[in-house]
């Protein structure tokens, strides 16, 4: 509890310093992040235009109000006048605001039309929101490349109550993922945004792009980033328990680097698909080792079921649970197909057969559970 007070004192003194010196220190953000797209700059300018209009109207209105409060107070001997209407004045203050609004609506219209024009894009990426991670799908010359991007699990564990970790020491706390989305610089990138479960919202403040990811809808947005770098954003629509724990990290690189990256991803994707499709029978240890990584990473299972299978709040525990220790069929079914009407997702759209087999085997043989081993072939048979 000592820390925030120290930071607080710093903040207050910094704010005072700002007022005195008129400078804004970079650490204390009072306005939008610096935009790195032309559209972002347009939106920023529009935002500042409306802001200053509001400030000037406020100054005018409050000046009259404070003047009256000072000059027309009874204690100064003011006697009230008896006017109570004036048609001319009333018409003027209906029309003038209307004209001011027009001066906002015109630039807003042109910006809005630009935002919604995703035509002539250079490449398309599909973005799917999932409780509580993002899936990105690329088209690498006809080969689908897809991966899940989820919060670094160390951040999630550090966030928990009584974790004993000082989160202020963690670099990019809550803003670091295992797999970044990668896009080329100066290319018009079209994003198709959707969701597999509830509504999420894909937002990167520096790009000024925000769009809801809605099940059953494919929304379209685009961005053309002008500066190489790593940009961070977060989910903006309440999507359940771990809404605060599904960041978006985009790495913007030169085109050549992008092509190399995508080619490497393609090789990985082909290899992973082949591995999952093979008839190999895996050992229990191999499956458990792989499963643990998925449980704590790509699958994000620990978010609800706990790092030790103990369950979190209203979400069920797996240690000793009827499903995780019962017949394999029931366990495979719930992991593959989810449980409608709950946050339990259908993982068959996120994990391949080998990954499903691994994580199920891990859950059936951890935290005191001792149940059967599930092979990729069992998953395939159940498909």
């Amino acid at each position: 509890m000592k820390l925030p007070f120290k930071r607080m004192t710093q903040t207050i003194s910094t704010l005072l310093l700002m007022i005195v010196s008129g400078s804004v220190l970079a650490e204390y953000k009072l306005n939008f992040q610096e935009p790195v797209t032309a559209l972002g700059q347009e939106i920023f300018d529009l935002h500042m235009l409306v802001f200053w209009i509001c400030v000037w109207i406020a100054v005018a209105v409050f000046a009259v109000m404070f003047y009256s409060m000072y000059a027309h107070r009874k204690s100064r001997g003011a006697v009230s006048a008896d006017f109570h209407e004036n048609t001319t004045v009333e018409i003027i203050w209906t029309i003038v605001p209307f004209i001011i609004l027009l001066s906002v609506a015109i630039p807003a219209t042109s910006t809005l039309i630009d935002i919604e024009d995703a035509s002539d894009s250079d490449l398309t990426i599909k973005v799917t929101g999932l409780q509580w991670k993002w899936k990105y799908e690329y088209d690498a010359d006809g080969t689908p490349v897809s991966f899940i991007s989820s919060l670094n699990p160390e951040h999630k564990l550090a966030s928990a109550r009584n974790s004993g970790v000082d989160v202020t020491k963690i670099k990019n706390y809550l803003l670091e993922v295992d797999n970044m989305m990668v896009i080329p610089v100066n290319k018009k990138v079209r994003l198709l945004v959707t969701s597999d479960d509830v509504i999420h919202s894909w937002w990167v403040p520096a790009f000024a792009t925000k769009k809801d990811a809605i099940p059953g809808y494919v929304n379209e947005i685009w961005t053309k980033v002008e500066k190489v770098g790593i940009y961070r954003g977060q989910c903006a629509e309440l999507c359940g328990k771990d809404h605060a724990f599904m960041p978006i990290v985009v790495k913007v690189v030169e085109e050549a680097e992008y092509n190399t990256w995508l080619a490497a991803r393609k090789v990985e994707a082909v290899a992973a698909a082949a591995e999952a499709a093979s008839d190999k029978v895996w050992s229990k240890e191999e499956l458990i080792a792989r499963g643990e990584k998925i449980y704590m990473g790509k699958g994000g299972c620990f978010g609800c079921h706990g790092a030790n299978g103990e369950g979190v709040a209203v979400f069920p525990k797996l240690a000793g649970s009827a499903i995780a220790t019962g017949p394999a069929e029931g366990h495979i079914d719930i992991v593959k197909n989810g449980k409608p009407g709950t946050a339990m997702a259908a993982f068959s759209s996120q994990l391949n057969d080998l990954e499903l087999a691994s994580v199920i085997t891990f859950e059936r043989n951890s935290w005191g559970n001792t149940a059967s081993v599930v092979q990729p072939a069992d998953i395939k048979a159940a498909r």
Partner: protein
Amino acid sequence: MTATTTHDAHHDEIPTGIKRWLFTTNHKDIGTMYLWFSFTMLLIGGMFALVIRAELFQPGLQIVDPNFFNMMTTLHGLVMVFGAIMPAFVGLANWQVPMMIGAPDMALPRMNNWSFWILPFAGILLLAPMFFGGNFSSGQGPAFGWTFYEPLSGQYDKLVFFVFAVHLLGFSSIMGSINIIATILNMRAPGMSLMKMPMFVWTWLITAFLLIAVMPVLAGVVTMMLTDKYFGTSFFDAAGGGDPVLFQHVFWFFGHPEVYIMILPAFGVVSEIIPTFARKKLFGYASMVYATASIAFLSFIVWAHHMFTVGMPVAGELYFLYATVLIAVPTGVKIFNWVSTMYRGSMTFETPMLWALCFVILFTIGGFSGLMLGVAPADFQYHDTYFVVAHFHYVLVSGSLFAIFAAVYFWLPKWTGNMYNTTLASWHFWLSTIAMNLTFFPMHFTGLAGMPRRYSDYPIQFTEFNAISSIGAFIFGFSQLIFLYLVIKTIKGGEKATDKVWEGSHGLEWTLASPAPYHSFVTAPEVK
């Protein structure tokens, strides 16, 4: 308030004990119950808010888990909107409308009783699931935000409690509104034409029509959720051919008029108070009425500005942008009228006036951020961030809630017959105002800097402003206990108030004795 004698001999004695409150059909008793109910809910909703602010005091989770945090944001919103603000205005209407139009009581007194007594049961249904699950940390209250967007709300397994709570709240509001309309249209004193009605009565008349129009829509949307969840329909389930965005359209068709339901009576209160303490007639009475009606009309055709990011066609977005910013025109008229009422008046600054002036300034700030939010391209950046949270707390706390405080400080001497302690009242005012700004002003910055709302934990760069907001919130919360103490003290006794109470008082309620007799205006007064 309780120990008054009837001035009309043929009326029965006032019943005593619990029966008086259970079976009462007296508008003053029912108004009192509404106000106490709403204050209780304000404290409950306020405690939820303090859990939120305590958790957000620093990054990392210290007090609650994310699911419990979401439950707090959800219940805070629902309790404040449906439990605190709306019933408080109905309570004020119950007390004041008959006295201001010279009527002996509400038009439908038995229904009045019923519309109040439904409320506590609705509150119990809403809050009960919090206590399911044995211990508090695994409470099973709703955790999907006060806007209960599908499909997230469909994942909630105690949904039925929420749905029936909303149904009951809807019944209560509709009955209350019918009563208010029937009273205003039928029971005005001879000579009081519509255009002679006090502004508070006008704003409530319009609000009541808004309520009747949109509460059935709310009931409809929760019923669709109910059948989706339990009877296999797919209104909002994409997998069954339904449409999650339809939910938002229906919800906000209710939701946008709803925000005006919470602010129009506040406009009415302020329009009563400012002329009283400026000792000058309200400037532009007729344009105030027309502006209120225009705002009410516009409120039905701007709903989708709450959902600019769902991916509407660009033509739709442009339409909702234009219609939304248009609301600034009639709202501006109101503010200009209030300022013109003060201009060349003879002002004094008693407690109700302090609250009313504070309302004008802070509500205007909330209106400006509203205008900014209405500009769709910029809204894509503001949407679902703390900027929105700052905006609606400026219009709902320093708007609606402050107007309610203003009203209580204005009429409390009339209700109780006693003058309150003005030193305590000043403490309440100054602490609340300073703390309110300390809490919500920094949220503009956290929002612009990029902090999404409804976050149980946040990146480090938002720490400072969140800490300031939390400190402000605790000061604000505990300041309300001063108000509680002050009101109880005033009911029990104090310096006797005159009938007129304030030097600049005008209107029928001030012609009654203080405290207002249990049965007032048994003979209708004449209005010239």
